[in-house]
């Protein structure tokens, strides 16, 4: 399967998110702005530029029901953008961080959002009606290093995080007055805010990109050692599987169904992982077909290319020119993919379409055949 559509929207994209009806995409072109593009007859028109942050924006999430955009940035702040008439109006959320914010996600009910940061903390933010103000509550002293990714469990209470200390952790984010006890499943029980459910100690190197399966029964995350981890039975006795693969590490993952995961990352080509009837996960195939032809002719020159790529990735904050595009390989993406977003209609059980963006500045839409 090849990509359904490829759009070159910037020189480099740090993250992107779709409007509820998927007609607009918000992305950060590797600077302090969010650009919103609207598609009209296969052409993209820039309709809004959100300028408020001072530094690179590291995370964007667009809530599907309430139509709010949340952004976080290396400037340690977060804004919730609300559409009033034709303008996007920002509300500052004081996260109380002393390091960059790295990732953000709305909770399934959209009454909270979670921010991972370089300050070894996770901020859970919720709206306080009386004060007309977003409040940030911190989960402290649980992570030994930067929090690279956060993912909400469908029950709106549990949250999974990955960190550069190599661990994946699951926390309760129960907030009195925001959540009710009966909304949680037995899994979240009577946990207090910030209580750790489990710490998964599977990777010996940085962990990135964590996601829950649609039912919330399985957790997948990736390590910087070309390994993807699948964890079932989150709780006192989780069961884990490591799947190693032959190519460069992944950076982000997405469950398209209970038994299929797409991983994207430094190999510039999405990888498909599937589980068989017994629940054993394995690498299935590359999504972009061109890989099949090139993988058999691996040579020494690919080393320099790979290490050049890692080098470029290590300093994304300097300027667009600093990230040298690697040699085009004829695929949809020509550089590291760092973001994967489902394009799911409300009510769909599985994801049929999704989009990826990366350091090559492209947004690519993929369609899965059945």
């Amino acid at each position: 399967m090849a990509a359904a559509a490829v759009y070159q929207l910037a020189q480099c994209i740090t993250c992107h998110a779709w409007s509820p009806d998927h007609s607009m995409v918000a992305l950060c072109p590797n600077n302090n702005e969010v650009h919103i593009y609207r598609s009209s007859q296969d052409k993209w028109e820039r309709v809004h530029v959100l300028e408020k942050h001072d530094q690179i924006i590291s995370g964007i999430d667009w809530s599907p029901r309430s139509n709010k955009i949340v952004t976080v940035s290396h400037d340690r702040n977060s804004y919730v953008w609300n559409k009033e008439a034709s303008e996007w109006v920002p509300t500052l959320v004081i996260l109380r961080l002393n390091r960059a914010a790295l990732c953000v996600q709305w909770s399934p009910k959209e009454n909270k959002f979670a921010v991972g940061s370089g300050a070894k903390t996770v901020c859970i933010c919720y709206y306080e009606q009386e004060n007309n103000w977003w409040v940030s509550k911190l989960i402290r002293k649980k992570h030994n290093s930067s929090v690279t990714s956060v993912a909400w469990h469908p029950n709106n209470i549990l949250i999974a995080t990955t960190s550069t200390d190599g661990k994946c952790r699951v926390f309760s984010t129960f907030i009195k007055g925001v959540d009710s006890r009966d909304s949680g499943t037995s899994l979240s029980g009577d946990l207090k805010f910030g209580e750790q459910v489990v710490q998964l100690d599977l990777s010996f190197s940085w962990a990135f990109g964590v996601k829950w399966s649609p039912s919330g029964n399985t957790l997948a995350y990736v390590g910087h050692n070309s390994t993807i981890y699948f964890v079932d039975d989150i709780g006192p006795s989780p069961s884990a599987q490591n799947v190693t693969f032959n190519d460069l590490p992944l950076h982000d993952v997405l469950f398209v169904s209970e038994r299929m995961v797409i991983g994207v990352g430094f190999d510039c080509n999405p990888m498909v992982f599937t589980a068989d009837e017994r629940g054993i996960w394995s690498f299935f195939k590359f999504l972009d077909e061109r890989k099949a032809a090139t993988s058999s002719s691996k040579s020494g020159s690919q080393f320099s290319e790979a290490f050049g790529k890692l080098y470029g990735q290590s300093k994304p904050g300097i300027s667009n020119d600093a990230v040298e595009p690697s040699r085009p390989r004829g695929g949809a993406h020509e550089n590291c993919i760092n973001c994967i977003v489902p394009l799911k209609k409300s009510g769909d059980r599985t994801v049929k379409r999704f989009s990826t963006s990366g350091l090559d500045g492209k947004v690519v839409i993929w369609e899965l055949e059945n």
Partner: protein
Amino acid sequence: MAASEDASLEADHAQAIIARIEHKSRKIESLLKQYKPVEALKTALEGSPPNTKDERCKAANWIVVHRALMAIKDVDGMFSSLDPEYYDILMKYLYRGLATGDRPTCDQCLRIHEKLTERAGLGCILRSLADTVNTV
């Protein structure tokens, strides 16, 4: 008090590991005499890296692995009978070999490295470089 107990425990542990490596070494020598270099390499890689922080154990184990590595003549033949589960640990020892700077060792390690990368890909290299806990 507790610290010294820990230290003596650690020393006992190291002694046990050294004894196991010596046993492994004898087994490898006998396998090499029977012209079974791949079996010798498998034996050397089994139980590696030793589960300890003691550098002496790691060095002792490296000597054993090195002995088996240098006995490999037919690299393609070796890979046809070496299971993929050994690839990651073999890669770590190849890098240890390259770090010695010894000419014949480096030549041998590079020859194997090329073939191993063809089979196990860049992922195998990354796994060996990224793991800072289970060093060989």
